């Protein structure tokens, strides 16, 4: 039990070290970018479980994110489980609940995956994302188009700056997400996901309940997408339905594809790249005068698909490169 926490704990320490460097060596802009990197890491890893490991296809992940974000935002303004002094704990509860509601929707969206494959499923999930967005636009108690602003954020304290508090909170969930998914995928459950991706009919005849496996993939994935949503609500501190549009889902897909379908470390690296690349490209913009970032982004997507369709890592993980060397 304790031993099983060793690696996560060490990784957490590693992230804390990075956080300290950011805290003392870098501007708030780099810091907020780092926070978004954390959110996108969770987003990419969670989508990877569906699109990469299980071979399903979701183009509506922003919808799960939206659900998480709205739950997290709404609860933090209206409800507290723990009294003053322990407010930080409340945020863990909100995040869990946000993820859970997203997981419920993941269960619902998982149902079509039982009957549909490939691009049909992609379109259905896209439709789901749009439905969520339109529904949120029409919900007055959630602010409609006005969104929710002034969302509280993870409280600082114990000598931590606000950035550090947010960063630690985010890192906690990143570690949780990574190790949860990693261990899930490297267990018999994970082999179930893989078998569904490779050949559903063969998987069924080997005794794999493909229905359950697919729904489970969607539920787990939606949970973490919801968590990513909650985190983004606490980091941006303002949400509205348009924040979770189609492009947000595409972002996540791009991260998974770029990192390599099925590679979790690949997703992480891609999340870092995709989050900071647009910021780096701003420097280009200052030279050219026009904003070419999205153009480059779109072009990169097509080129990756043509030149290296398996993504940076393919289905390999970072440690596989290690071993070879």
């Amino acid at each position, binding site marked *: *039990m304790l*031993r*099983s926490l060793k690696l996560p704990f060490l990784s957490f320490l590693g992230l804390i070290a990075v956080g300290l460097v950011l805290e003392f060596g870098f501007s708030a802009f780099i810091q907020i970018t780092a926070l978004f990197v954390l959110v996108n890491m969770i987003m990419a890893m969670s989508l990877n479980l569906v699109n990469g490991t299980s071979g399903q296809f979701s183009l509506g992940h922003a919808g799960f994110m939206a659900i998480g974000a709205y739950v997290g935002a709404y609860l933090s303004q209206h409800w507290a489980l723990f009294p003053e002094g322990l407010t930080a704990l409340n945020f863990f509860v909100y995040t869990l609940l946000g993820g859970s509601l997203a997981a419920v929707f993941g269960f619902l969206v998982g149902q079509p995956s039982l009957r549909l494959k490939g691009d049909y499923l992609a379109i259905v999930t896209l439709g789901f994302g749009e439905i969520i967005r339109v529904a949120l636009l029409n919900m007055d108690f959630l602010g409609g188009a006005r969104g929710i602003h002034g969302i509280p954020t993870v409280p600082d304290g114990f000598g931590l700056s606000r950035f550090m508090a947010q960063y630690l909170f985010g890192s906690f969930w990143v570690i949780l997400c990574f*190790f*949860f998914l990693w*261990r*899930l995928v*490297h*267990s*018999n*459950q994970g*082999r*179930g996901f*893989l*078998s569904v991706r*490779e*050949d559903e*009919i*063969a*998987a*069924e*005849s*080997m*005794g*794999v*309940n*493909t*229905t359950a496996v697919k729904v489970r993939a969607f539920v787990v994935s939606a949970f973490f997408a919801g968590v990513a949503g909650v985190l983004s609500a606490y980091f941006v501190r303002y949400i509205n339905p348009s924040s979770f549009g189609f492009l947000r889902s595409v972002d996540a897909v791009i991260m998974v594809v770029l990192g390599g379908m099925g590679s979790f470390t690949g997703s992480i690296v891609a999340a870092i790249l995709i989050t900071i690349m647009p910021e780096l490209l701003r420097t280009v913009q200052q030279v050219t005068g026009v904003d070419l970032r999205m153009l480059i982004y779109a072009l990169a997507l097509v080129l990756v698909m043509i030149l290296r369709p398996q993504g940076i890592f393919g*289905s390999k993980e970072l440690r596989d490169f290690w071993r070879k060397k």
Partner: protein
Amino acid sequence: MSDVLLDVRSITMQFGGLKAVDSLAFQIKKGQLVGLIGPNGAGKTTAFNMLTGVYRPTSGDILFAGQSMVGLRPYQISRNGIARTFQNIRLFRELSVLQNVLIAFNQHVKSGTWSAILQTQSFLDEEAELRSKALALLKVFGLDRKADEIASSLPYGEQRKLEIIRALATKPKLILLDEPAAGMNHSETHQLMETIAQIRKDFDLTVLLIEHDMKLVMGICENIIVLDHGVKIEEGNAQHVRSSQKVIEAYLGVEESV
């Protein structure tokens, strides 16, 4: 009749106006090696698909160890103890040889999700045990040295073998082999047939074998069922089938048309 393992009661499969299999009935006793033969398009694979739950028979019933299998999903049937291979190999192509076998073990795994997430001792022990079991099984077929290779990189004959190993790994009572010798030359086929006879003994199995070349099965099958146009035209031992006029006609008819 307690030694009847599989009791197929008049199953029919209708696709639109076409009856692919028509009122097929037969029994397989425990421990038997049975051949299902017939010319191409006779309905052999359709029959397999009904037995394994891929198709639901339009009518009729399938009893396995006394229980009805009709309406169960393929994975449930697999868990009841029927395993199969596929005519057009269906391995998990991008996974390693070892993983292919491990997936087949899945239905017998005891550890739950949470023990995997928490990496409990029992989970780690079970994983290690599964791994050594899988390697042992691969060793029987001499594939243990290729355990970490990607399944699709194996030569054709070994892919066929791996499919059989994978089916065995589900610990079946009955194994259905769909043209296991397809694409093999004569000596390979011969070797394979011997292996099949061998595993039947070693794993205490009942085997149902599809083959469209009847000469192959004659040597090893105790009972042979002949299908033509979805209908059972003959059943019996090799001697009996070989001399049956109907069987000769069915095969000759096909050869003429080819």
